[in-house]
């Protein structure tokens, strides 16, 4: 069965450093992958989408890579700030059309001043 793995342990980093979160998957070849941010007590919010033919995607301080050979995506936040503290979820497509995403359990990021 499809499996998405995100580090269940929280990632603690100092303000100003680059945070790197990992999403690994097995038994599937998604056409694209999405990253969402979730704050405590709130619903997830879409951040970035990267397609299988894109190695890297950037948006402001965010950078996502997608290695279909390793079956892995890395999510980077450069010059991290305490406001970046949240849980970050990756999601893979599994079907065409709607009803296609499966979500990882997420990794909690804590950026300390």
């Amino acid at each position, binding site marked *: 069965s499809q499996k998405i793995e995100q580090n269940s342990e929280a990632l603690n980093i100092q303000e100003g450093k680059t945070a790197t979160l990992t999403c690994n998957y097995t038994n599937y070849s998604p056409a694209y992958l999405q990253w969402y941010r979730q704050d405590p*007590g709130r*619903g*997830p919010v*879409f951040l970035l989408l990267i397609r299988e033919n894109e190695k890297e995607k950037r948006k402001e301080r965010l950078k996502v890579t997608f290695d279909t050979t390793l079956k892995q995506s890395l999510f980077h936040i450069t010059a991290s700030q305490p406001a970046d503290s949240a849980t970050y979820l990756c999601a893979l497509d599994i079907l065409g059309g*709607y*009803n296609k*995403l499966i*979500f*990882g*359990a997420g990794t909690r990021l804590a950026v300390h001043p």
Partner: protein
Amino acid sequence: TAGITQAPTSQILAAGRSMTLRCTQDMRHNAMYWYRQDLGLGLRLIHYSNTAGTTGKGEVPDGYSVSRANTDDFPLTLASAVPSQTSVYFCASSGDPSTDTQYFGPGTRLTVL
């Protein structure tokens, strides 16, 4: 624009009672979803609807039912609640079938005693 609203925000329910969680979106999205989120398990799909008038079962549909009478509303009903249905419930919608990027509501925290 409100996006997606959910009601109630939280609820304590006695086991065996029924309850309907409400979800309304104002983005005219075709697809809508109900997820439950439990610690360590991530988002699990309960039911979905690709368009008004149609619904489908997700990963964990047992004990839940949905209807989609119109584009905007997608209520989730628990006919006879059990303690294992204690969770945070998120409604989401998607207007792009090519990516299925989803927009989430604020969630309903349900406790079944």
